[in-house]
């Protein structure tokens, strides 16, 4: 699924997979500490001293470790774990990369941090013609590229034209320009876009505008990753100074930024491939900000001094998707999805047996909102929830009745069997590196086991392959939703299906429903906000009724920052909003450094406990090591 992720709309796996790599790395190192000294495997032994040395030396050797370096620079350090796929805005799709483009390049429009309504960005004004087919943007004249050249409408026109003419440049954001007919820049402050048919996303064109004089020298957009020459020319609040794969990305503030320069002297995204290591670094004051905390980490950090935990409603949904019988546009079916799931009653029964409240309480430990419709309540204008008889609530008795009705009766062994006498057993595709998937999988196994349905939780590191091939019955699904819901709705239209069984489509879950498609087409050309909102709600209602997706929860964004390093920072939305992965550059642009250039010395009590635990473990390990060394030496002559 990774390859199909548009900017800012990051589906879980992207993050997961990169996280997996650090899992291996850090896990192997940590385990080597224990295993290395005990397992008599030769190759492991050299790893042990390294592993033990790593935690001690890492902070010292890491570049720019202290928040306030010796020369008094105020450095804002953000812990990240997702690898950057590319620094070319035409290719990059990961959340880290697209968040960084927000900081380095202006977009035509931006979103207000208060309520995410569209506000001026690179463009100051915009208007559409009476026939809704021609849009005229007024480009600001006070924006300059970081190499001193003025940023004009010509740059924007070149960016869009490149994406329209070169398929390789349309990899990341092609969905915005596919409906463009012609883009011109009559003068430096005027950009004219002509459309083939009306497009409701015209004020939400999330495309980073690049400098024409730099990018026109690029030959092959499919290969150019923009990571050789630094600093990278941009016109956003920050400029990329340096980048080392999976180590750090360093940004300097753009002093000429038209909205005002950021207050910090440097912004560093430092890689911590292990969340616990990132949290430890936050406790020590080596990083200023960590996102994606587990409930236990959030609780522990909540008690620590100088650390503020920000627990905000998230923009993601976490859902259960059923395979509706994977199909290509040419009508050919493929994959091996379970036939029983084509019966709406069976799907409904499964969903009736899912206790979403328990999932929110137990798995997310309250750090989530119970799932209802498709779009999270954070986007309150588009948020929709089922009502009355439409609602699929937790009701195992009803689920059992529905299954009986569908012809799956319980046999003597308590298993549901179909008419062919075969017991009902499903598989669910889970991301091996996502603890939430695994945890919810455990609950589903027990809930559905009560119903007499078997469930095999298939946790894979790479879920994309079976997913794209349609080889799944159920799957854990999740997308981040943008202020404009067009994209997350588009992935459930027939148009998003793959052209043939071999192709890759933009589809999320192979859903193809005529009613949904009609509504989608209507909302895409509807410029009236109220009417469009209503259509979007109708689409969610329709999606809910088809019963292919069950949104279980909207996980919160749980993040923490050091108050002795960051005095203030803007969340989005301003009231109870998140900091990481915003629609805009607000958090890092607005961050104000704290006065005390505090070398944080306050270790929380919990880390003391950890140190004692690690110390005890180290003693055991060393003892075992010595023991084995003696043993090996004494038997040396017997070994070949």
């Amino acid at each position, binding site marked *: 699924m990774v390859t199909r992720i548009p900017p800012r709309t990051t589906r879980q796996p992207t993050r997961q997979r990169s996280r997996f790599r650090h899992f291996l790395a850090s896990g192997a190192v940590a385990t080597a500490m224990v295993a290395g000294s005990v397992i008599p495997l030769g190759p492991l032994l050299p790893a042990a001293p390294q592993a033990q040395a790593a935690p001690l030396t890492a902070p010292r050797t890491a570049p720019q470790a202290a928040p306030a370096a010796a020369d008094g620079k105020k450095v804002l350090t953000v812990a990240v774990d997702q690898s950057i796929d590319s620094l070319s805005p035409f290719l990059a799709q990961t959340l880290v990369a697209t968040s960084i483009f927000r900081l380095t390049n202006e977009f035509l429009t931006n979103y207000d941090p208060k309520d995410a309504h569209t506000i001026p960005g690179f463009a100051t004004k915009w208007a559409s013609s009476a026939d809704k087919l021609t849009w005229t943007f007024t480009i600001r004249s006070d924006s300059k590229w970081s190499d001193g050249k003025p940023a004009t409408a010509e740059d924007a026109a070149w960016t869009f034209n490149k994406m329209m003419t070169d398929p390789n440049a349309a990899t990341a954001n092609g969905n915005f320009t596919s409906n463009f007919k012609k883009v011109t820049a009559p003068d430096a402050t005027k950009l004219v876009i002509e459309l083939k048919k009306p497009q409701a996303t015209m004020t939400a064109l999330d495309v980073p505008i690049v400098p024409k004089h730099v990018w026109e020298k690029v030959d092959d957009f499919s290969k150019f990753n923009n990571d050789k020459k630094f600093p990278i020319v941009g016109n956003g609040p920050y400029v990329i100074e340096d980048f080392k794969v999976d180590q750090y990305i360093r940004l300097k503030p753009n002093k000429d930024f038209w909205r005002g320069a950021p207050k910090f002297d440097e912004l560093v995204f430092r890689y911590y491939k292990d969340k616990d290591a990132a949290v430890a670094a936050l406790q020590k004051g080596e990083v200023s900000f960590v996102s994606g905390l587990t409930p236990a*980490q959030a609780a522990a950090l909540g008690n620590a001094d100088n650390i503020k935990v920000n627990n905000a409603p998230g923009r993601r949904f976490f859902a259960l998707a059923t395979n509706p019988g994977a199909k290509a546009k040419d009508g050919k079916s493929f994959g091996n999805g379970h036939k029983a799931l084509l019966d709406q009653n069976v799907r409904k029964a499964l969903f009736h047996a899912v206790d979403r409240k328990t999932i929110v309480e137990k798995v997310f*430990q309250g750090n989530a909102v119970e799932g209802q419709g498709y779009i999270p309540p954070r986007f309150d204008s588009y948020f929709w929830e089922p009502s009355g008889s439409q609602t699929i609530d937790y009701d195992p008795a009803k689920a059992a009745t529905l299954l009986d009705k569908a012809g799956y009766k319980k046999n003597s062994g308590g298993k549901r069997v179909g008419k062919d006498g075969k017991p009902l057993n499903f598989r669910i595709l889970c991301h091996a590196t996502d*603890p939430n998937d695994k945890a919810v999988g455990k609950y589903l196994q027990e809930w559905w086991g009560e119903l007499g349905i078997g469930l095999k939780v298939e*946790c894979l*590191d790479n879920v994309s392959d079976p997913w794209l091939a349609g080889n799944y019955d159920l799957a854990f699904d999740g997308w981040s939703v943008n202020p404009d819901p067009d994209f997350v709705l588009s992935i459930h239209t027939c148009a998003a299906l793959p052209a043939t069984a071999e192709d890759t489509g933009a589809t999320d879950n192979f859903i193809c429903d005529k009613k949904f498609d009609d509504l989608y087409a209507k909302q895409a050309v509807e410029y009236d906000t109220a009417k469009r909102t209503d259509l979007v709600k109708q689409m969610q209602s329709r999606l809910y009724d088809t019963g292919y997706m069950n949104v279980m929860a909207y996980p919160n964004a749980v993040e923490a920052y050091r108050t002795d390093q960051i005095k203030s920072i803007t969340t989005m939305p301003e009231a109870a909003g998140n900091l990481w992965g915003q629609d805009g550059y607000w958090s890092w642009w607005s961050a104000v450094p704290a006065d005390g250039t505090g070398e944080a010395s306050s270790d929380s009590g919990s*880390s003391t406990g950890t140190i004692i635990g690690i110390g005890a473990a180290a003693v055991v390990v060393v003892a*075992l090591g010595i023991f084995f060394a003696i043993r090996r030496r004494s038997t040396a002559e017997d070994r070949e």
Partner: protein
Amino acid sequence: MTIDKTPPNPSESGDSSEASEASGSLTEMPGTPTDGTAPPQTTGAPAATAKAAAPSASSLMWARRRASVSRFWRQYRTHRAGLIGLAGLAVIALIALTSPLFIGGDVQSVTDAPGTALESPSGEFPLGTDQFGRSLLGLLIWGARISLVVGLLAAALSVAIGTLVGIVAGHFGGWFATVVMRITDWFLVMPALVLAIVLATVMSRSIWTVILAIGVTSWPTTARLVRAQTIAIESRPYIERARALGGGHGHVMTRHVLPNVMPLVLAQTTLGISTAILTEATLAFLGLGDPSVVSWGGMLQDAREAGAVSSGHWWYLAPPGIAIAVVALAFTLCGRAIEAVLNPKLGVSR
């Protein structure tokens, strides 16, 4: 009988079975390690003994076995570390085997979890609870079963492969052995953990995958040891006599070489179990185990995913880690003692 056959003749089924029948009554004692200490006598005059004392042969054999077991035990007893290890193993095995009686599979259930998430140790939950509110003590005991089963089976598989490769390579020699041993060397220099991770990644998640992944990556040491021992044994004169009497390849390998390498294999297995348990824990910790079963490595992985390290929830991390270390240590102590008793070269007690 088979005297007219020439020595290096490959065994035909009739001959070898007849030969093994004759000598079998005395030498077929796999698992009875005494053979290793006194190999020459066992094959003295098989045919004569078997024919002359047919009724007493089996009683003789049993007497010999009893004697060798008691001798083994007498020597084993002198190794205090070995006794400690054995006692530890007995306790752990007892707990693991009887756990279904006093905790049962309910301990794994998340929907019926009795506690709240990540409680610290208390009277009700002596080791606290995990993120689902399940009792960690119950999970620890329940997890012992998986860890032990995987450890035993994987070690057995690994030693079986190693023994087979070692004996075959040692027995046949020549270019065949060269090829087989180079393959062994290749496995030996491959980082076993990396290979196991690759195997566990490409195959479906189950404990059988883990067993297989450990088994096929950890056999080369055994293979080398067994090959060396095989070569040493095959240079003894009684092997030549057996060949002269018509013993084929299969006969020599299974009736003469195998019983003599058994002590080594036994010691290797015991030592291998601790390796296998650790590797299982490592793989589970790296998220490559079967997520639907509770194992000690899996508990460590769960603890990490819950953020127990940075939150200071030591009661979640320490018990499974200590349990792994204790079991691995117990097996190693036993293996070391067995090795000291059975390996003639290590006759002096240390």
